[in-house]
């Protein structure tokens, strides 16, 4: 089975490392971005199958990243899983409305993280949406 490319957008270096190692072990190919600005350029260059996105980021927060990815033709339908330390209250609905396919709160159980990523990969966004 070919590995699937996942873009991890996370400004915390320890989390990038932990998430990267875990996803690599689960047959993903992780690529990384450290802020909102590089998230978009890395996504354009790497064409990931799925994006794992933090909300609190320097240089354009996660909402801004989603907005910009949605405007780029070949990235508009890449599923996004939001993983944030922010409160679910308020942020969950806002993230889903902005186009996220799933919302997870840090720290998330490993099984729940994998299940959410697998699920959004299995049911890609409706291209008409």
């Amino acid at each position, binding site marked *: 089975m070919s590995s699937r490319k996942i873009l991890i957008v996370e400004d*915390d270096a320890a*989390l990038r*490392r*932990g998430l990267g190692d*875990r996803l*690599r*072990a689960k047959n993903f190919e992780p690529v990384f971005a450290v802020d909102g600005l590089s998230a978009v350029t890395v996504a354009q260059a790497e064409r990931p199958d799925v994006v794992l996105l933090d909300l609190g980021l320097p240089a354009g927060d996660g909402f801004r990243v989603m907005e910009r990815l949605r405007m780029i033709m070949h990235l508009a339908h890449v599923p996004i899983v939001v993983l944030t330390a922010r409160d679910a209250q308020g942020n969950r609905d806002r993230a889903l409305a902005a186009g996220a396919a799933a919302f997870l*709160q840090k*720290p*998330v159980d490993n099984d729940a993280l994998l299940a959410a990523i697998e699920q959004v990969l299995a049911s890609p966004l409706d291209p008409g949406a």
Partner: protein
Amino acid sequence: MAAALRLLLLEDNDGDARLIREELTSDRRAGEYEVSRASTLAEAVRLLGADRYDAALVDLTLPDSSGADTPRRIREAAPSVPVVVLTGLDDDDAAVRAVAEGAQDYLVKGRDGPLVARSIRYAIERHRLLQDLDAARRAELEMKDRFISHISHELRNPLASSYLITTNLLEEFAGPLSTEQRENLEIVLANVNRLREMIDDLIEATRSETSRARLHLREFPLDETVAGVMKDMTSRATQLTWRQEVPSGLPPVLGDRDRVAQVLRHLLVNAVKFTPPGGTITVRAATAATGELTVEVEDTGCGIPPDVQPRIFERLYQHSQTDARYRSGLGLGLYICREIVRQHGGRIWVESEAGKGSRFVFTLPTANSVATTERNASS
């Protein structure tokens, strides 16, 4: 010269009203007054709603109100207006009660007349200080909650990476582990999980104080939720006997499943904490006469002395008499339980005897009990 003070004089007796006006105008040093007079409570409430007043002078006995009720209703109508009570010599008790409830001062008619101007000045000043103090206290509470919410959020990132990196090592992504390395990492992971539970509790407790968390209400079967929570707990405490007596035929709960699971988890964590090895923990549920469900968590632990029972649901309460090893955690668990149960419109209480164990009981609404409550409320 300062602007005239606007006074509302609520006095049904014309003679008394005239005397008060005379006292107010006799002392020119005390400043100018603009006095509006009302003879009934209803008229006073209407005037307070229509105009701004600096203070109200309120007689207790009126055609449409009497006793401490009068100043109480004036303060309800205009909380920002300080109240000075006027009373007869024989009606001191009601006046004292009115002051205890928030009136600024009282004056006995025919005796304290010369004091009226000074009393009003003091009442206005004191009332203003109290309101400032209230506003400051509220602002401080809000700031405290914002601060806790901020640090809890900041704690989640290092917690998330500690969890990930520890589990990555335990699953040997970075190479095989020796038995001793594994044991040490298991300890790290257990502590990371404890920290996580405490941070979740902290966030939950501050949230229920400021903005009430919204409940996602829907019907769900209680037995499945109980089984899910118990499965997780029994594997953590194998030295205890676990019993589940939740019939599968119960009507579904109308509530927020995650929140109800949280209540159960907190009660079970407590039961485990206070029950010695070999003890038994039982979860029971049944339908009450009201149509609600009652859920019980019973243990055979050390029990709770009667004098502390009323206090255990308070925020940050921890029983100082108990053994230090029981005093882990933040003391927020039962407080969170009570808040969640209350948000569902239910009740929670404890039945316990020292040395014989405890039984925590809470009620949860069903579609049936909610319909009954609404019918009763509308009839």
